[in-house]
């Protein structure tokens, strides 16, 4: 698809605003910059008829020659928006005079009065660039020659913008120009669609344009248009669709005035980051991961191989117990009080680290005392009576239930019975 002046009339499938936008691109450098800006404002405001009438008025008043293709496209557009095409007949048609070979402009990439063409553009357009879709790249250059019969002052700043398929060229052009104007920067904003051929004017401008960095911009994004006659340009493919973007090897870095510093990679860059993902060594960072322990575990000392070793229990000598006590089955050994309704396992007793040294010493003394008394009982009265009597200094051998008034305690209407009393 041709982008600009030479577009043939009746481009099926191309929206009318895009056709008008492309038509206006073809008049860049031949109409004054304000006329193009005004026409683009009408276009962005959905005033196609006003934009076309304004364009025709500027062409007639300025006696600007147009090509036959441009006239055909203009007449077609006039018809499609129901405008009176009588003024089209007043247009001067001259393919030779309208050719870009006659209308040549000079551009400069260096600073003007100490100010480069990109100076202030990124800051002034940041808010707009953040919201406009699919803006691929922005470039700026000074035009040194006047444009149109009522030209403004020169040098004049020209901003070249490349948009992708999802971008809106008329809206991008108007909003960016308006944003710059509000910031006190007068500039022509030429928006070129990706994959479309640009007029010679824009190719010439790109020879000296410098890239304007902005947040969403990918460093590998191609310029909106490639200079045709730049001897310093390396061989590179022409303006390509986004699928070929990664193959462009920074062709602008050799252009005069191009910025040295590369812009930061955008988080929403369309395709270049995707193409670079396989090149990023993501595997090396993975091995250290197992070494990185969670903070909670890391703050603790390394657990010992034996979880119980940290208790460091005193070496308990083998209990010297009488053979009778030691010969009892495990079930008859003194059991620790049940914990949470469950009796501690017998095997946990020797190595019960929850006991302090003093408790373990007392427990051992108790066991020795029991063994001693058991040894003494072997020569005296019965076992149970011996226990009760022994604890209380040799009292009566009857079970004494403690009560406050001496009466037996009644539980649920039943007085407690002596454990040895049959129920």
């Amino acid at each position, binding site marked *: 698809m041709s982008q600009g002046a030479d577009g043939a009339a009746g481009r099926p499938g191309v929206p009318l605003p895009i056709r008008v936008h492309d038509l206006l691109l073809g008049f860049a450098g031949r109409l004054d910059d304000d006329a193009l800006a*005004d026409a683009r404002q009408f276009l962005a405001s959905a*005033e196609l008829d*006003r934009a076309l009438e304004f364009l*025709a008025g500027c062409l007639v008043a300025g006696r600007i020659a147009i090509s036959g293709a441009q006239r055909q496209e203009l007449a077609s557009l006039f018809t499609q928006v129901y405008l009176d095409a009588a003024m089209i007949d007043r247009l001067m048609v001259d393919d030779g005079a309208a050719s870009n070979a006659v209308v040549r402009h000079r551009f400069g990439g260096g600073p003007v009065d100490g100010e480069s063409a990109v100076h202030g553009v990124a800051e002034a357009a940041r808010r707009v660039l953040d919201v406009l879709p699919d803006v691929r790249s922005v470039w700026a250059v000074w035009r040194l020659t006047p444009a149109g019969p009522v030209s403004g*002052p020169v040098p004049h700043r020209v901003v070249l913008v490349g948009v992708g398929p999802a971008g809106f060229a008329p809206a991008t052009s108007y909003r960016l120009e308006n944003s710059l104007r509000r910031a006190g920067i007068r500039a022509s904003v030429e928006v070129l669609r990706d994959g479309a051929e640009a007029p010679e004017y824009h190719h010439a401008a790109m020879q000296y344009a410098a890239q304007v960095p902005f947040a969403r911009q990918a460093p590998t994004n191609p310029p909106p248009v490639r200079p045709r006659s730049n001897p310093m340009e390396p061989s590179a493919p022409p303006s390509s669709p986004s699928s070929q973007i990664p193959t462009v090897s920074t062709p602008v870095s050799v252009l005069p005035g191009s910025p040295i510093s590369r812009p930061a990679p955008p988080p929403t860059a369309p395709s270049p980051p995707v193409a670079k993902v396989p090149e990023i060594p993501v595997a090396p960072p993975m091995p250290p991961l197992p070494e990185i322990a969670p903070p909670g575990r890391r703050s603790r000392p390394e657990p010992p191989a034996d979880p119980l070793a940290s208790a460091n229990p005193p070496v308990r000598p083998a209990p010297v117990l009488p053979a009778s006590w030691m010969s009892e089955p495990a079930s008859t050994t003194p059991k620790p009080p049940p914990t949470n309704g469950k009796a501690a396992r017998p095997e946990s007793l020797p190595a019960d680290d929850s006991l302090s040294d003093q408790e373990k010493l007392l427990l051992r003394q108790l066991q020795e005392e029991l063994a001693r008394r058991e040894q003494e009982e072997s020569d005296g009265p019965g076992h149970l009576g011996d226990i009760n009597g022994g604890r209380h200094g040799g009292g009566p051998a009857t079970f004494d239930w403690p009560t406050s008034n001496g009466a037996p305690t009644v539980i649920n209407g039943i007085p407690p019975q002596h454990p040895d009393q049959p129920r």
Partner: protein
Amino acid sequence: MESQAATACHELLLRLAGRLPDRQLWRFRDWLAAGALDALAGTLPLTLLRERVGITVAESMLLNTALLDAGADPGLLNSVPWVDELDDLDYTFTPESPERVNTGDSVAVVLGAVLHGRPEVVDVRGSWRQHRSGTGPATRVVLVTSVADAARLAGELQRVLRALGTYEPGVEVMPEGIDLPPYHERALAASEPLLPGVITYRRQLVPR
């Protein structure tokens, strides 16, 4: 010699100063200077309608005289609303720029060179316009009194001023003897000769 339609159109555009945006007004005056009445016939009525600019009865007659024969749509011409009297001006004028800096007036130098020896030019004065709200920069208004070729002279001076850096030039070329609108009366009342000693201001201001 300008045609009656062109003269009427110039006076109409003169009266629209301060009512149409400068960005559009200078463009229409440029078209008129280039003789593109047919371009104005299609665009000016539409602009008046879309910018909601009302015109007086006298201005409506000027509009019809200027554009009807040039191909303007009579329906559009009749659609432009009339107003009984104009609203107050949104601008104030001062002889000197409120943002005066101590530099030479290169614009006056160039204008003096361009206008030197022109017999149709009666007077050239300058004034500075500021929006009543105080917003926006002060803009220079060049006030030229001429006895002929007012539209062409306005276009020429506009091109000069644009080349010098005034993107939306305010050039008011007033045919001698017309009833001046309030905008120009106040501008003249707060004006100074742009080319001191070269042209004598002869206009007798008529207080409103």
